[in-house]
């Protein structure tokens, strides 16, 4: 079980969190083409290594936040609040 650092609450065990998929995927406006919409909806980078992703401290403060996790080692590089830029 991972230890995840909620930017609001600090280190907590993984069971308190729910996963939210890749971070920084900008919701496409209604005006985009079908191809652009499909890319937004379905295509994710699925990076090997450093990966920006969303978590929610579901059984805690309830806040969504972003993280960079290394998908090879499972260690977090950082977590940061929604709206903040990664360090």
């Amino acid at each position, binding site marked *: 079980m991972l230890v995840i650092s909620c930017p609001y609450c600090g280190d907590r065990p993984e069971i308190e969190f729910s996963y939210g998929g890749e971070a920084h995927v900008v919701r496409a406006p*209604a005006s985009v083409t*079908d191809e652009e919409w499909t890319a937004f*909806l379905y295509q994710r980078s699925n990076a090997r290594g450093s990966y920006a992703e*969303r978590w929610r401290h579901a059984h805690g403060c309830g806040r969504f936040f972003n993280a960079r996790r290394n998908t090879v*080692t*499972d*260690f977090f590089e950082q977590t940061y609040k929604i709206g903040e830029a990664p360090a």
Partner: protein
Amino acid sequence: MTQKYRLATGGLIDRRVTVPFTFDGKAMTGHAGDTLASALLANGVHLVGRSFKYHRPRGIVSAGAEEPNALVGVGRDEGHYTPNLRATQVELYHGLRAESQNRTPSLERDVGSITDRLWRFFPAGFYYKTFMWPKGAWTKFFEPRIRAIAGLGRSPAAPDAARYAQIYAHCDVLVIGAGPAGLSAALAAAETGARVILCDEQPQFGGALLAEPGQSAWLAEQRARLAGFANITMLPRTIAFGYFPHNMIGLAQDLTDHQGETSDDAPRGRLWQVRAKQVITATGAIERPLVFPDNDRPGIMLADAARTYVERYAVKPGNRAVVFTAHDDAYRAAVSLHEAGVTIAAIVDLRESPEGPCLDAARAAGLPIRTHATIIGTEGNLRVAAVSVATIGAANAERIACDLVLMSGGFTPSVHLFSQSRGKLAFDPALDAFIPGTPAEPTIAAGAASGCQSLEAAIASGRAAGLSATGQAVAAPVAETVAAGFLGEVPHGRDPASVRAFVDFQNDVTAKDITLALAEGFRSIEHVKRYTTTGMATDQGKTSNMNALGIVSKSLGVPIPSIGTTTFRMPYTPIPFGYFAGYARGDLFEPVRETPIHAWAAEQGAVFEDVSLWKRARYFPRGAETMHEAVARECAAVRAGVGLFDASTLGKIEITGPDAAEFLNRMYVNAWTKLKPGRLRYGILLREDGFIIDDGVVGRIADDRFHVTTTTGGAARVLNMMEDYLQTEFTDLKVWLTSTTEQYAVIAVQGPRAREVIAPLVEDADISAAAMPHMSVVECRVAGVPARLFRVSFTGELGFEINVPADYGRAVWEAIDQAGQTHGIVPYGTETMHVLRAEKGYIIVGQETDGTATPDDVGLTWAIGKAKPDFVGKRALARTALASQTDRKQLVGLLTADPAEVLEEGAHLVADPAQPIPMTMLGHVTSSYWSAALNRSIALAMVRNGRARIGETLHVPLPGRSVAVTLTDPVFYDPEGARLDG
């Protein structure tokens, strides 16, 4: 039976306490401090099991967790029976009942041993080769028979009667293993004030030193120092079985198991989930067997295990021993046994000219040593009786009678936990073994687990690990010369095809099996492992993996580091499931959600059904009514008079804030801006891919306040989705979301007389048809309780849903029930609710929809606010691929030709039931009921291009027949909606 192999002095057993036990029903005694294995050996019992595949007689090989053979079932009854325990780890207790496994009818006479005679027909991969034909024979014939004879223990026939505890813990340093290295590490870390947990599988700390009487003073001193540290948590009888990410270690602590047949009030064991800043694995090393012909007879054991039985348990494992070794350590065992009165018939050393203090001691004791020699075969059926010893490469062998053979191929560091942590192993050519290399987690290996062989080196490495784990400076390691030993099959000069030299005792894998796999083209060690099953038994190859690697290495001429090693997986030793279940059993398995009305419904004899975690009243049978009869009566009562329904499980979310309406505009398909306070609207929620995820009635309480309802099962999902958009996407909106599901009881009063029933109870509101039309909401008092009164219908009848604070739910319910008596009010359950809504063609999300239905598919296009620039799912609905699809499944009604025929939900629809299989499916039945109001069956279905097919006949193929159905509009009852106004 007397303990005739018990030594008169020495050991850590308490001779004053005699402990009776039985093995396969035979009464024996041991002493306090014994394991089951040492007590059996004290009684002269080596034969303890039959092997997995060949049913060969097998004896005790080791004195620890690595034991491959001595697997036993222990327990006083089925509720306390644990199979596959290693006798070497089972502490003896008064009255212990153990039985051997995999034998019929007895260990001595086992009919399954016929497979041993037929061994040539059971080569590696025989499952893959032999049983592929004829088709079906594997599952029907071969597998059941093979399972009956190949196996380990049996499952207990009753549920586990014991209780189990669980705990989370945090520490600065977790030290696994309390041998010399672990003790030194724990003390060094504790000196800095760090919080330390020290665990060890044994009942006493000391590790290998428990079998070293010469070190008892040092050990006593360390234990005394441990006791002086309040910051050390000591966990004896605790196995570290799993290394999980981010330094979380799973420990299984035996609490009362070792005490024997105690009450179940105290937990049997406790699962620890320890999060450690640093982990030190001081898990020791495991001696390797030597792979020689017929090396598996009872009485053939590891040299250091035999020494442990003498020194720690004061047991003589035999009378006349041959020692077979490639490592100096076995000479220490030979001297120990010699001093305990065992005749050492010969020490057979594979090495040409071994030298050193251990050999000197053996020579001084006058023990006969043969170097550059090997064992080419053994004799004896239920116990080894003799070995044949030959000089390597020579033809002549000498037969030496014996009842005990000690073997030592050297030591393999226990890197299991380090490997589980995904640390990289490094091959140490001096040791001929893998040792911990680059770690992946904050973890340090110490002592024999890191490759140390001398006591001084182990202590120094433990101390260094403890200091390093707490950020202290570390001295240079103690230099020592280590010895490797031997890997692989020993030279024996015999036809390799005609001998069986066992590598993996537990899975009955021989050196020949491995060379066969290589001859058949397998190269990867992972493939060889799976093909031969070597290392895949419950011991995970603790004693066999390195020998298997050695055979592969020699056969292929490839050095071991280039072959690599297989992955170690948790658990280190098998752990009973009860540890993992912990408290989550019976009533505590899963939370149960009950509504405020639940107790009333139970008192009325309601039959409940599970809806997610909720218990919902399904129907209220009267007398001997069947469900069908009760539901027909409830349906009729609602349509003709009035019914009372508990809708408290509906999800409820309070949405407030100046931008609440705009937030709903962006989330739901509907338009909300113009909805006036006091009005309701049926809302549909899509995912971003355009498919329906939830629905529910939404009330506008004020300009900045909405009362949103969701499906019972979708409440948490919808709130999470709303929070997601609010926090991460629509961050410009000032909105607050609050779950109010548990705060309101919801009482539905439905039927033409609903208004008459509640009117006398309503204060502060005019609920007349003129003042309160369908789809409106008013805040008022009902039965004196503040309420949000919805005029809404999920039945097609005049209806109200009364939301009151949960604590008042039952009181208001009873007041309405009382007021309704003169109107013939009837409580109804979810089954009636389903029928009534189906008669009206109202969908249930998750029943008519399956995550691939758009609003249009289920006939709800009218709900979409088409002028809105955006909402979740809007863009997806406009995708060309979706919008241009002409054969989407659409909601329709079905009427069977025979009105008495009630279709199966899930049944498929086809155009021609006579077409060949596989048929072309046109759709499926989503809901199907007997309609009391229509006096016939009705069904809803999703059918390709269904709306255009209304009026057509399709068919439901069933076994042996088919049912013709006519497609209709999904609204079966009161299509004009006239009844909504009562």
